[in-house]
């Protein structure tokens, strides 16, 4: 886009310069209260995950099968466009997920921001951590515990749209006949998580 010109060439800049300026922007933005959403990616046995947090807590965990663009665009629209790749805010979440995948953690101790889920879905999401590590519940059981025993399909939808998979254990919800059912990260990922919790 810049017109090459022998009299006025563009001054050289290095990637190191930009990296340092980015770091400074993140610090300045955070202390000015302008870092509405911080995110990072994390490699796990179920694939790369995107982790995003507001100042209130972890707001999104997403499987990165198709890259981060759609997930970030969704966060920009539904939370705030003031989004930066700022890993520091996700340190605790990344550490705890790492421990979980190594079989050394059975519950997450993280502040959660549930603003991306509302109504009945939110009730379901709020109840999912009641299913203990290494156990499963059927969609019907979850519907009953959320106070709407007939809303089995709605439970399925709530799980499919869980904004915080892995941390909020929608993978522990299976079919009444014992078959594994669907999963937001794919059935293979669901099997890996359930196996991990069974072995540990």
């Amino acid at each position, binding site marked *: 886009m810049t017109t090459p010109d*022998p009299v006025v060439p*563009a001054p050289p800049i290095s990637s190191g310069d930009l990296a340092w300026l980015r770091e400074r922007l993140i610090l300045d933005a955070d202390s000015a209260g302008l870092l509405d959403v911080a995110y990072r990616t994390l490699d796990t046995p179920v694939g790369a995950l995107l982790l995003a947090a507001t100042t209130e807590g972890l707001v999104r965990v997403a499987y990165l099968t198709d890259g981060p663009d759609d997930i970030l665009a969704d966060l920009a629209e539904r939370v705030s466009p*003031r989004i930066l790749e700022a890993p520091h805010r996700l340190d605790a979440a990344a550490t705890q997920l790492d421990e979980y995948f190594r079989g050394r953690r059975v519950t997450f101790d993280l502040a959660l921001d549930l603003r991306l889920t509302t109504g009945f879905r939110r009730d379901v999401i709020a109840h999912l951590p009641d299913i203990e590590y290494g156990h499963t519940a059927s969609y019907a059981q979850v519907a009953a515990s959320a106070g709407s025993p007939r809303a089995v399909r709605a439970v399925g939808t709530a799980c499919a749209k869980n904004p915080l998979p892995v941390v909020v254990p929608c993978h522990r919800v299976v079919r009444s006949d014992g078959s594994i059912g669907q999963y937001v990260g794919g059935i293979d990922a669901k099997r890996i998580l359930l196996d991990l919790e069974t072995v540990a």
Partner: protein
Amino acid sequence: MAAPRRERRSPARAGPLPPFEHIVVVHGPTVLRVCRALLGRVDADDAWSETFLSALRAYPDLAPGTNLEAWLVTIAHRKAIDVHRAHRRNPIPTDTLPDRAATTAPPGDGDGDDELWTRVAALPFMQRAALVYHYVGGLPYTEIAGILGNSAAAARRAAADGRAALRRRYSVDTGSAP
């Protein structure tokens, strides 16, 4: 002249705002080059930081269709004016003695462009700004006119004058055309 003073609504963006991270990745390098060319290395880093922090603050209210690069350069320009005025308050020659050494460090890394950037820094501010926004920032003169508060023709003229001055001094000093 009937040249448009402002042409801020180019079709650079439509629909919802992209994540600010995208703005930093895509426009960060160009804005840094503009700041370096305009201010020298040390002041440029501060100007870049202040530009992107200001941009982040205003970002959610940005009008649809805004040319993001021109918007960022507009903010950087205001920061550059602040720096420029601060230097003028100090007894350091800039515009008035254009053949003296520049007040701001050149942006080069000790390569052959150092002398060039010393010369750019010695140009009158409007010439320097017009030159840098066009050749380093890649902005059209209609956008530059909006930033400088003049007409596209005046912006083009300022850049041409600056470019001619650079070429002249380059030839005089080195005895060869660039």
